[in-house]
């Protein structure tokens, strides 16, 4: 259908539309008009992606000069592929309706592992291996060497692409990962480099967060993207953690040992080169004297996105003299390594700020702040000069140099924690230096500054005001949308007690309590008897799940559960879990029914959907608080309190509730879907917890469904399931939660729609 969104003609590739989709598009349009950032929460399964795409594509067509590019960031590879397929659908609809061919180029970009077509390289199992192998075939100096020695191996796809691929841009169309590979195979071009090259002129790019948020990758891939882009972060409820992860560094003894080896290799290579090709080193020296002018000019002329690792100031300076020659730099790194080694030789935990660390390093080994800041850049230059083939081997020393640059650049927002051993095993020495970022806004700042509109959206962003605070930006729209439902297809219940009235909670003091574990077991057992097909249960942590499973086994609860359903359990091993998942789905599919025991914050809870019969009930055992004894977390909480005035408890609860919401939200993926959401912990009944759940769940959490016993839960669930099992047809939804174009245009419907968006 064709929609009129405040004067903008939007093609929407379906015959009907959900009211909240319309409302979502309205808010999105306003955000784009204002050229500002937005935070939008809409439940999953209400067609968020297609609404986003429809509106932004329409906007791009209407105002091609205002918005030149859409950068759609998602979290996982399947998500990325899903987005591209939805886009393809939209584009097909466009060409069907308008009758003209599309001139929009849309493509997905992923790592080499997912795009490589080189027969040998692509058969490697791990992403890192693929990257390393690819690099060893395609690095510029290797190719230069090949001129003199043609027998060196090469990648014909890359060569072909380099020779031909850049002349003609990729023809317009929608390219998913497989399409790119197919195209690459046909043309004999490398799909990965083709995609990386093509994103510069593509209208729509779909890729993962890291390409924008991880400075190491963003610098390579995304820095030349146009300023007039709209950036969308989908499934953004964890965006702060992604930011933090990309800026944090951990150094162990092993890292140091490997860096030591790296440094030695560097030294030897330098010696060798000095004998054979001293001019090369001189040339490098000259370049360093001239400074990082190129980069500086580029950034000033606004071609590049800034890199948080490489702050503006250092671009204006030349690399300091003390590390300009290769030998000096290697010596410098050696000294730095020795210092770090000495720091790791401790017996008690040390926590300090970056300035303290710098002061200490100056006092102990006379290393200045300034050369440290240039470490990363200097090492990169050296590696390039020395023509090191396998960069992957030098990951350790690269890590150290990145750390050096970061620690000397940021005096705020980071903390250094040195732990001599893991908390659980105080007898085994395993010193780790955590250099941990506490301020997610550092990594995302360049994105907000560079691009005109950044949309942060997800099914669970409640409470909405916290994201702008921790990411430090000022959005023009903040809105939460509810799900209009013709029937209440979600049923959140808070189970607080067992039938014996013993409180159920995963609180630390009582979580090992026999009665609590037994009650949890009874809950699972009872539910396994009444819920059809699949049940997914989430625990607060892996160790907790292990303990509970063991005691359930001892008590014979699991055997009884097995009478009703098969049991599958998430393990720390991803491959094993994948298999368990597949078998779980198979068991749901063939009617046996199954239970999946899983972990909140685990891979399953973040990336796998349990549509329809794959998840008729989700049980959340306990409140998934993060492990609060961790020093890094404590430091971060302190930072949040001091900088953003967010109380520790508020943040912890917020974090726990967003994960709980993620877990239970896995079961509902649409309006025809239905599922029970069982929160098995009495603490969920409290207003401070409940209030932090997304609005679309909160709405259905009535006072009558708080603090139930297991028996009451079973009764309510039975009633709910029986109701939901009745046939549900399109007519039942039409006019309420599903609208035709005419219905959409009616006056009172528009009024109703206005209420869907809940401004924060």
């Amino acid at each position: 259908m064709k929609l009129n969104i405040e004067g903008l003609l939007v093609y929407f590739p379906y015959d009907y539309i959900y009211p909240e989709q319309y409302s979502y598009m309205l808010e999105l349009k306003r955000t784009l008009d204002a050229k500002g950032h937005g935070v939008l929460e809409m439940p999953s399964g209400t067609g968020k992606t297609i609404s986003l795409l429809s509106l932004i594509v329409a906007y791009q067509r209407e105002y091609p000069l205002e918005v030149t590019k859409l950068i759609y960031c998602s979290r996982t590879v399947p998500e990325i592929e899903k987005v591209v397929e939805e886009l393809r659908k939209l584009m097909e609809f466009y060409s069907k309706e308008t009758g003209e061919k599309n001139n929009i180029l849309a493509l997905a970009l992923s790592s080499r592992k997912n795009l490589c077509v080189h027969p040998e390289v692509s058969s490697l199992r791990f992403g890192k291996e693929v990257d390393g192998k690819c690099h060893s075939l395609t690095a510029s100096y290797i190719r230069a060497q090949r001129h003199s020695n043609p027998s060196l191996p090469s990648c014909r796809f890359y060569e072909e692409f380099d020779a031909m691929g850049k002349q003609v841009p990729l023809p317009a169309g929608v390219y998913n990962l497989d399409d790119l590979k197919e195209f690459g195979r046909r043309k004999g071009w490398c799909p990965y480099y083709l995609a990386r090259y093509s994103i510069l002129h593509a209208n729509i790019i779909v890729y993962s967060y890291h390409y924008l948020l991880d400075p190491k990758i963003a610098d390579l891939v995304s820095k030349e993207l146009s300023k007039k882009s709209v950036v969308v972060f989908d499934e953004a409820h964890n965006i702060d953690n992604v930011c933090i992860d990309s800026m944090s560094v951990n150094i162990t003894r092993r890292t140091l040992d490997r860096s030591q080896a790296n440094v030695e290799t560097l030294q030897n290579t330098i010696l060798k080169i000095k004998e054979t090709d001293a001019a090369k080193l001189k040339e490098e020296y000259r370049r360093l004297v001239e400074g990082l002018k190129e980069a500086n000019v580029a950034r000033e002329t606004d071609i590049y996105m800034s890199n948080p690792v490489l702050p503006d100031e250092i671009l204006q300076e030349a690399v300091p003299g003390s590390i300009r020659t290769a030998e000096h730099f290697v010596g410098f790194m050696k000294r730095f390594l020795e210092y770090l080694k000495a720091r790791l030789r401790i017996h008690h935990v040390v926590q300090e700020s970056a300035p303290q660390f710098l002061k200490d390093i100056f006092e102990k080994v006379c290393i200045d702040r300034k050369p440290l800041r240039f470490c990363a850049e200097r090492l990169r230059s050296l590696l390039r000069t020395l023509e090191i083939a396998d960069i992957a081997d030098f990951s350790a020393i690269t890590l150290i140099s990145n750390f050096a640059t970061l620690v000397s650049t940021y005096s705020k927002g980071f903390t250094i924690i040195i732990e001599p051993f893991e908390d659980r095993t105080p007898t085994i020495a395993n010193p780790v230096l955590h250099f941990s970022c506490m301020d997610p806004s550092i990594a995302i700042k360049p994105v907000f500054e560079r691009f005109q509109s950044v949309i942060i959206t997800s099914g669970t962003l409640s409470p909405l005001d916290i994201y702008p605070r921790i990411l430090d930006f000022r959005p023009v729209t903040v809105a939460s949308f509810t799900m209009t439902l013709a029937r209440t297809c979600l049923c959140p219940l808070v189970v607080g007690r067992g039938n014996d009235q013993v409180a159920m909670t995963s609180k630390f003091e009582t979580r090992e309590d026999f009665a609590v574990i037994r009650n949890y077991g009874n809950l699972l057992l009872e539910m396994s008897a009444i819920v059809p097909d699949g049940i997914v249960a989430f625990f607060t942590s892996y160790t907790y799940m292990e303990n509970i499973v063991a005691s359930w086994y001892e008590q014979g609860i699991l055997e009884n559960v097995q009478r009703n359903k098969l049991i599958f359990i998430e393990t720390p091993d991803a491959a094993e879990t994948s298999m368990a998942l597949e078998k779980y789905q198979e068991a749901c599919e063939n009617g046996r029914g199954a239970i999946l025991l899983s972990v909140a914050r685990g891979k399953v809870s973040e990336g796998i959907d349990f549509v329809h019969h794959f998840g008729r009930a989700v049980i959340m055992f306990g409140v998934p608080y993060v492990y609060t004894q961790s020093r890094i977390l404590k430091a971060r909480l302190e930072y949040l309190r001091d900088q953003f005035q967010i109380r520790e408890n508020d943040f912890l609860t917020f974090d726990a509730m967003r994960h709980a919401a993620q877990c239970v939200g896995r079961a509902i993926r649409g309006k025809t879907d239905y599922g029970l959401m069982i929160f098995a912990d009495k603490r969920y009944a409290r207003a401070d917890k409940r209030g932090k759940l997304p609005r679309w769940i909160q709405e259905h959490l009535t006072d009558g469904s708080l603090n139930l016993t297991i028996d009451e839960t079973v009764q309510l669930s039975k009633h709910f399931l029986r109701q939901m099992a009745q046939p549900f047809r399109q007519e039942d939804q039409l006019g309420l939660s599903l609208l035709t174009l005419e219905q959409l245009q009616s006056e009172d419907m528009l009024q109703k729609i206005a209420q869907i968006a809940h401004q924060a």
Partner: protein
Amino acid sequence: MAALSEEVLLVVKRVRQRKQDGTLYLMAERIAWGPEGKDRFTVSHLYADIRCQKISPDGKAKIQLQLVLHTGESTNLHFSNESTALKDRDAAKDLLQQLLPKFKKRANKELEEKNRMLQEDPVLFQLYKDLVVCQVISAEEFWANRLSINNVDHSLSNNKQEVGISAAFLADIRPQTDGCNGLRYNLTSDIIESIFRTYPAVKQKYGENVPHNMTEKEFWTRFFQSHYFHRDRINTGLQDIFSECAKQDEKGLKSMVFQGVKNPMVDLLSLEDKSLDEGYGSNSTAPSTSNTNKTVKENSNSAIIKRFNHHSTMVLAAGSGKKADAPNGQACETSSTDGNSRDSDFFQPPIKKVKIQDVIEYEDLHRENGKKTVALNLKKSDRYSHGPVPLLPQQYTTSQDIVNSVNCIKQEIASYKPCLTQVMSSSTASCAIAALSPGGVLMQALAQQAINQMVPNDVQGELKHLYTAAGELLRHFWSCFPVNTLFLEEKLTGHLEDMFQMAYNKFHAWQTRRMMRKT
């Protein structure tokens, strides 16, 4: 009454039935009991008729054996020989235990199948009545053709539906304490079957060790003692014969894991697009996987989890009809292609595409486009649109002719120019119109009754039966060609001809009967 050829497998004396002493005979095909001093059996059951046997509990004073028949009746046999009663009973029980399953499978299976077919298919039933009951052909011949056809298309799906395995079969063997520091496990043949199907490794061990190395009882005792059965125990001594099973399971699990998953949407390995490099990230203090710093408890916990996953997988595999040890076999098969698996992802995209399409589809946002119907495929549309038309002594026009003439008329009408000088008189015109209107003289052919309305229903039905019967005979006839066996030749020259004759007679009889009734 006892046939001479019958082989007597076991004779038990002093068995009482209805308070009468007598002798129990177990023969090759039946079990029989005769009262003392008489040479005929008052009780005789074919094994095939027996549903199950029950025995009295051990402690009871009366030592009895009950036979329950399919009909629901039962016969109680009381072993009354004081000294050897228990032994006698057990001997009888054991023998029955061996014999019954054999007959159970064969019992009436064919007959049931035939019965089922006749009940399900009324046409076949009628055919059966027409041909077999009227003795046109023999029942065997009738079925000879049918069943074989039937077996072909049913053998896959319908032959015998595999019964799945309860996931909790191990729970059903809950040990009971017998009061004096011992544990008793109750094993039934069903459970043993379940164990074997789920754990082929155990079956293998059983085959290797029983009965050469140990008795069956010993085998199961060891099984229940082993860590293999107790999922929370970790490997014990090497002499445990089941430690090998555990290893084998582990291997099977590993190979399955290595194969990866087919559904890309659940593949957690390829979920992450770009993992952080080693050393970056805030929580890279992932628990080190080395076992050294794990406590025994943690180890046993993760063993439980692994074994639960394995157990469920195996139960699922056993239930879905695949051979339970398939993963091992498959592993070799696929791993050979795995080397160039990247090339084999030519096969992968379709699955992936379909899955993704499934996921992004919002079915309720689409307009429903009616029910899906099956297109009617007509070989001869002529016959469909006309139906059997009574043969009239006029020229038969094909639909092509009609179409042509319609076109002709159309053209003429298109180029029709009224010639106003030569119009008819109004009365003639109205006459012509009347004749051309439905019911008019010229339109009579249309108003004629269709043949199916002319012939009464019962006649139609009978005719249909005759027709199908004749068709069946023809089928038999044609199935004899090519005549390459003696049997076929005989059939063709011998009784088929008779059959046709008979069928013809039957038809003739019917015809004359009809004629008689009509006149």
